């Protein structure tokens, strides 16, 4: 009934003019919505928090505030020793690599491949008096699990659902989904499901003062960030970052 009355009203007019007006009205509505959509979208996309360049930060003990020296770092420490760099909420492992006997092992620079992108990068060599101190992001590149779920396993210890004790040359393993990384080879992939190695932290060692600095990040982007320098608040100090120890 109402349907038919509607149709009659519409059909008295010239049909082509009616169609034209209809499309014009729809177009005007579309333009108005597009404008409103832009306002909403641009408003709700926040500017990613961050900084503009890699700072050079002295590694200090987070409780005492004293600079970290070589003797503060234990060889094959099974505790989680970590520091934030380059932003807050971007934890990194600090490791002093050794063999099964507890002697320092020199870590040399190697070419590390990134299966996800097919590219590769040159890892920074270990630093310190024995060239055995290395650091990497502590956020698993697979799905972003953080310590203590992901942590370092001493050489010769067995890893649950991971490489056997004899295969373990000192590896980082994530218990979320089983990704394993080799800190002795630029934190490259030992087992999946990860398709990216851990981002390496380039360290600098000052022989005279026996102090360590974090200088920059090398390799893939830190998990969950669009760049290493965005997606978090800057660290409270622009000259140092605290190293904390947590038993695992």
């Amino acid at each position, binding site marked *: 009934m109402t349907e038919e009355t509607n149709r009659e009203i519409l059909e008295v007019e010239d049909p082509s003019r009616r169609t034209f007006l209809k499309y014009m009205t729809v177009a005007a509505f579309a333009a108005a919505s597009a404008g409103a959509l832009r306002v909403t979208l641009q408003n709700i996309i*926040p500017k990613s928090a961050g900084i503009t360049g890699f700072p050079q930060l002295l590694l200090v003990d987070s409780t005492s505030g004293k600079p970290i020296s070589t003797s503060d770092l234990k060889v094959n420490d099974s505790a989680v020793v970590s520091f934030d760099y380059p932003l807050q909420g971007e934890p990194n492992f600090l490791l002093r690599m050794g063999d099964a006997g507890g002697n320092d092992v020199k870590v040399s620079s190697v070419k590390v491949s990134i299966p996800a992108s097919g590219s590769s990068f040159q890892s920074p060599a270990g630093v310190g008096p024995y060239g055995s101190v290395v650091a990497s992001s502590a956020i698993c590149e697979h799905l972003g699990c*953080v310590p203590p779920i992901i942590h370092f396993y001493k050489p010769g210890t067995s890893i649950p659902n991971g490489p056997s004790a004899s295969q373990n040359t000192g590896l980082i393993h994530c218990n979320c989904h089983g990704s394993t990384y080799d800190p002795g080879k630029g934190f490259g992939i030992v087992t999946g499901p990860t398709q990216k190695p851990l981002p390496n932290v380039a360290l600098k060692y000052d022989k005279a003062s026996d102090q360590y600095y974090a200088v920059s990040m090398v390799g893939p982007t830190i998990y969950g960030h*669009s760049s290493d320098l965005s997606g978090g608040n800057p660290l409270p100090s622009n000259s140092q970052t605290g190293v904390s120890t947590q038993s*695992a």
Partner: protein
Amino acid sequence: MSEKTQKETPIIIKMLNEPRPIPRRVPDYMRKKGGAWYWTGAMVMVAFLYEVITGLVILMYYQPSQAYTSTENFVNSVPFGSLILTTHLYGAYMMIVLVYVHLLRNLFVAAYKKPRMMQWLTGVLLLALTVGIGFFGYSMSGDVLSADATDVGTGIARGIPFIGNYLSLIFFGDGTPISLFHRMLGWHIVLAAGIGILFLGHFIMAEYNSIMPSHREANYKAPAIDEEKPEYKPWYPHNLLYMLEIGMLTLAAILIITSVVAALGSAVPALFSPFPQVSPSSPLAQNVPAYPPWFLLFVYKAVDFSFMAGPGPFYATLIFAGIPVMYLLLLPYLDRSPSLKLTDRPITFGLAILGVIFFISLSAWGALTPGVAIPTPQVLAFFLFPILTVLPLVYYLSRNYQKSGMDARHFTQLALSLSFLGLSGFGLGMLIDALVRTRNPVYYIPSVVMAMVVALLVTLVAYTIWDSKHAAERKASRPISRRMRNTLGGAFTLGAFIIVTVIQPFSATSTFQEALFGIGIGVVFLIAAANLKLYRSVVLEE
């Protein structure tokens, strides 16, 4: 109005131009035994209202700037905080389960067919929104599980080509924790409002299209419309009281189930614990397996499939959650035949059974072997075996059902129980094989449980076959006398008063005593529902 115009005019325009009174009167069989199946939507609504009310209470205390401490404080120090937060979580679980029940029921009775297509589509969208709001709610506590869930959520959002980074910024903020929890709180509320609005549309459409009548009333053909008949009873008191009864039962279920689980305390595995877990930075965090909420476990397992490692979690989600949702959205357009009979749509029926089987077994797989990579041949076997058993079985049963002389209810029951029997039998075989070969005691308990499931299903199949032959001889049970019902009602109410009095001295800040308090209130709701049922039987003779 002619059949043709009905087909052409969209439901929204019809609703505006020819409004009908709300609520419509409904047939009596909706309030009889088995009538609860017509009210699954009402149960979802009650659970949703419970979520809104408890959610608003928690909103008064939640601080995005210190998500974990404010949540822990709410649980441990705010009076009845533990009861409110745990029932908010379990109420959400209940709502998700009820949404799935509502979906399956309407799929089995073919309620997606004309004229209810638009209603079905809004329903599928509501399912997606419900799972989405569940994800944000689960991630807001700031505990280790929520941190893991957020990391995975960010990973999936970022994996979306081109717009991934923007989506991650929109949903999870600028990368700082304050921004993260603020955004999640915001989206949790925005989605609740979205569900409310879409639900209103879904509900008005349901009223407009009338309830999905029983197949016999509809003559087994779409469009199935319930024409209002003069003998239908008025909404008040008949339906209102019935709906109150359903509502009380839903509330009682939420309160009792949650409180029993909460009272069990640390005996409950992390996956089903109603309490927040430890903080992500605690050394104990490594003992908590990185589980997503149970309703997303199926995608979580799919991420472990070896062939998904390369494409990443976004594509795993797209394949294992996106395709089923797409199928559900397209279902009204794929299955266009007017027949409502299950036997006339064996493929839809078979796929529905497979959907349930895959959802449950993928979830169980994800819970049992979190993070263990699964090689492709095993994945293929997992998917192919049920497909190759269930589809031919359902097809064969459908073709031969006319000859067997079974009625539709028995047929459905038989097809369902046979499908699950086949699968459980296979599972039992695998478990016993593993037990014999490895002699590892971890397989012992699952084997016993699975054997019990198989035995139950065998009994169910045998009973269904027996029952289908003897259905005609069954006699109705003798009703309880009117005086007896009055006495029962009195005793129930007295019991309710006693319970309410007894639970008053319980501590409002001890999680265990709050759980007991919750059980008490739940039982009182049960009593209220029982009394309503007695009242309806005595006064309204229903």
